[in-house]
């Protein structure tokens, strides 16, 4: 019987397998940031251990950093960033600190440097590590104990998750993006639908996505509960990688590509579960509730708890409506927002900024609008293309790179009761600041919403 892509990559990385034990898996790349690493480095120090492979490890500062120029003013955030600097220096780990040209959100810089390649195992103390699976590797988030384990041994004991195929047939209609696709998938399978699985996204619509779009889809795999999401590498992947700083060169490139081409699910392989979705039926999606599975087409209205027969879903909807300050039956297009955020590891890449700029060109925003590039390299490229001028002329704020308003750890937050349209990945209660209310959207919908002040698709303008 043939093997799935996930099985191939997994098998390639098994260091040791014994009956009744999890596999010991080799980790090709370990990404680190300031929030989930301090206690792990402390653990190493206490045990007198070293980082086994600093040359397979890279660190950046992203969660705590302010996105306006200047130092960190919050003393606790500052200590955390300084602790990372101390640890990186002591253990010999490459670090891209604030202000450095290579700094950025951890899941944006890996692919950008060409460090994320097909067939690799990649981990980070961050659940959105699933982003890197867009290149055809197995990439997943881990906790701090596991961060310490990888630092000390470059391996992880793990059971191989089951495999799920999400087959996306048809083509995405014009104006419908990778973000809408993944929001629709999560709405369909639910926040627990992927638990225990590695998801492989397949089918025509997936093949047609750019690398940026594929990263957006894989990024949010965790919001469906999946441990990882992946997409088989193809010419789109190779074109993206070619010439990047850490991509192979010359003969090594040819060898690598030959191997990468073998990284696809065999025709006779069997997935543990298959989910089908028709891309041609999709329209722009937005979330109305407090988990990413509570999403609907923008054409819909706020649902009523009575719409749900399952008592758990009903009480979740009741609670969500109360927290979100929404009334059942209100058309989603009538929801007014106070703030628009374009950025994060879901939608903070150059293509996302281009699509937002296209909508904002020659228009004016009427809400507070933050445009935050996912990395300093994205920022630099956007400025070379003049996108920052478009944003500024529209009245939006053009910021420095970081996680920004994706989570309430840095100065970019919502005030209690404030409502945002956000290109990030989590609409959890308080995610963007205590009492803040989040609607997840694509960059295009975010930009159009900034123009009208209520949830809007570009086609409505």
């Amino acid at each position, binding site marked *: 019987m043939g093997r799935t892509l996930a099985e191939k990559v997994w098998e390639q990385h098994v260091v040791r397998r014994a009956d009744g034990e999890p596999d010991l898996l080799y980790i090709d790349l370990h990404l680190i940031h300031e929030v989930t690493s301090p*206690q792990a480095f402390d653990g190493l120090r206490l045990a007198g251990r070293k980082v086994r492979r600093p040359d397979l490890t890279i660190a950046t500062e992203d969660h705590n950093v302010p996105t306006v120029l200047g130092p960190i003013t919050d003393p606790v955030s500052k200590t955390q960033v300084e602790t990372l600097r101390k640890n990186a220096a002591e253990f010999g780990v490459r670090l891209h600190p604030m202000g450095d040209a290579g700094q950025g959100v951890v899941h944006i810089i890996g692919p950008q440097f060409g460090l994320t390649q097909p067939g690799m195992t990649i981990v980070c103390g961050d659940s959105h590590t699933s982003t890197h699976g867009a290149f055809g590797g197995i990439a997943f988030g881990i906790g701090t104990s596991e961060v310490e384990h990888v630092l000390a041994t470059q391996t992880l004991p793990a059971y191989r*998750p089951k495999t799920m195929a999400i087959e996306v047939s048809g083509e995405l209609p014009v104006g419908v993006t990778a973000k809408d696709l993944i929001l629709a998938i999560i709405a369909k399978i639910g926040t627990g639908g992927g638990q225990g699985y590695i998801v492989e996204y397949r089918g025509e619509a997936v093949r047609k996505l750019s690398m940026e779009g594929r990263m957006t889809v894989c990024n949010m795999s965790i919001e469906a509960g999946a441990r990882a999401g992946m997409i088989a590498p193809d010419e789109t992947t190779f074109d993206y990688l070619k010439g990047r700083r850490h991509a192979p060169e010359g003969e090594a490139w040819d*060898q690598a590509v030959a191997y990468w081409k073998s990284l696809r699910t065999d025709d006779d392989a069997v997935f543990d579960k298959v989910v089908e979705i028709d891309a041609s039926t999709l329209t722009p999606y937005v979330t109305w509730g407090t988990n990413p599975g509570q999403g609907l087409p923008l054409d819909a209205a706020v649902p009523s708890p009575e719409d749900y027969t399952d008592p758990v879903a009903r009480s979740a909807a009741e609670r969500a409506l109360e927290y979100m300050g929404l009334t059942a039956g209100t058309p989603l297009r009538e929801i007014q927002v106070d703030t628009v955020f374009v950025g994060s590891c879901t939608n903070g890449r150059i293509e996302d900024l281009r699509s937002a700029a296209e909508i904002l060109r020659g228009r004016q925003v009427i809400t507070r609008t933050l445009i935050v590039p996912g990395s300093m390299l994205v920022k630099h490229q956007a400025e070379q293309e003049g996108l920052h001028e478009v944003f500024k002329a529209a009245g939006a704020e053009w910021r420095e790179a970081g996680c920004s308003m994706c989570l309430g750890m840095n100065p970019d937050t919502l005030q209690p009761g404030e409502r945002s349209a956000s290109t990030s990945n989590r609409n959890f209660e308080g995610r963007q600041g205590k009492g803040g209310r989040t609607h997840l959207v694509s960059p295009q919908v975010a930009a159009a919403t900034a123009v009208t002040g209520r949830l809007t698709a570009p086609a409505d303008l």
Partner: protein
Amino acid sequence: MDKFTTHTGTAVPLRRSNVDTDQIIPAVWLKQVSRTGFEKGLFSAWREDPAFVLNDPSYEGATVLVSGPDFGTGSSREHAVWALQQYGFRVVIAARFGDIFRNNSTKMGLLPVILPDDKVEALQAAVEADPKLEVTVDLDGRQVRWAGESVAFEIDDYTRWRLMEGLDDIGLTLRHAEDVAAYENGRQPWLPTTV
């Protein structure tokens, strides 16, 4: 990590689904660089509501949290586990858990127990009827017991053994350092390094 064999204590029912780790410990609490003091952040936004179940004095001292489905979804923050443990919980019972949270729990010796929906519901109702009800979570026998009920749960042998022995994963892996070195010698030559 402390050994876990059998634990008996009182329980607190958390009648919510999708309790994500942002709720268990909001991001502002993640800025600390130490491993202690996270109990103050546990459910800190929800605890501001006097009607929140953890503020109910009848559940004081509870060591078993009985939650709705999809507990611990979202962010990978292990701080969620630390906060629960430092607040006093030894066990979380739910019908479904976020994968990363469940993994993190077993690394730290907080036992995540999966019971069927109707059993979770029954236990929640029993605890609501009698907040002083004793609940026994027997890892050795893979059973949860209360008031004459006894419900089996599944956990893989290896994780159970590790929890019962209180073993640290790094120490276990380092016993196989030779295998790791051998694997490293055979890695594909084009794989990137960060240097």
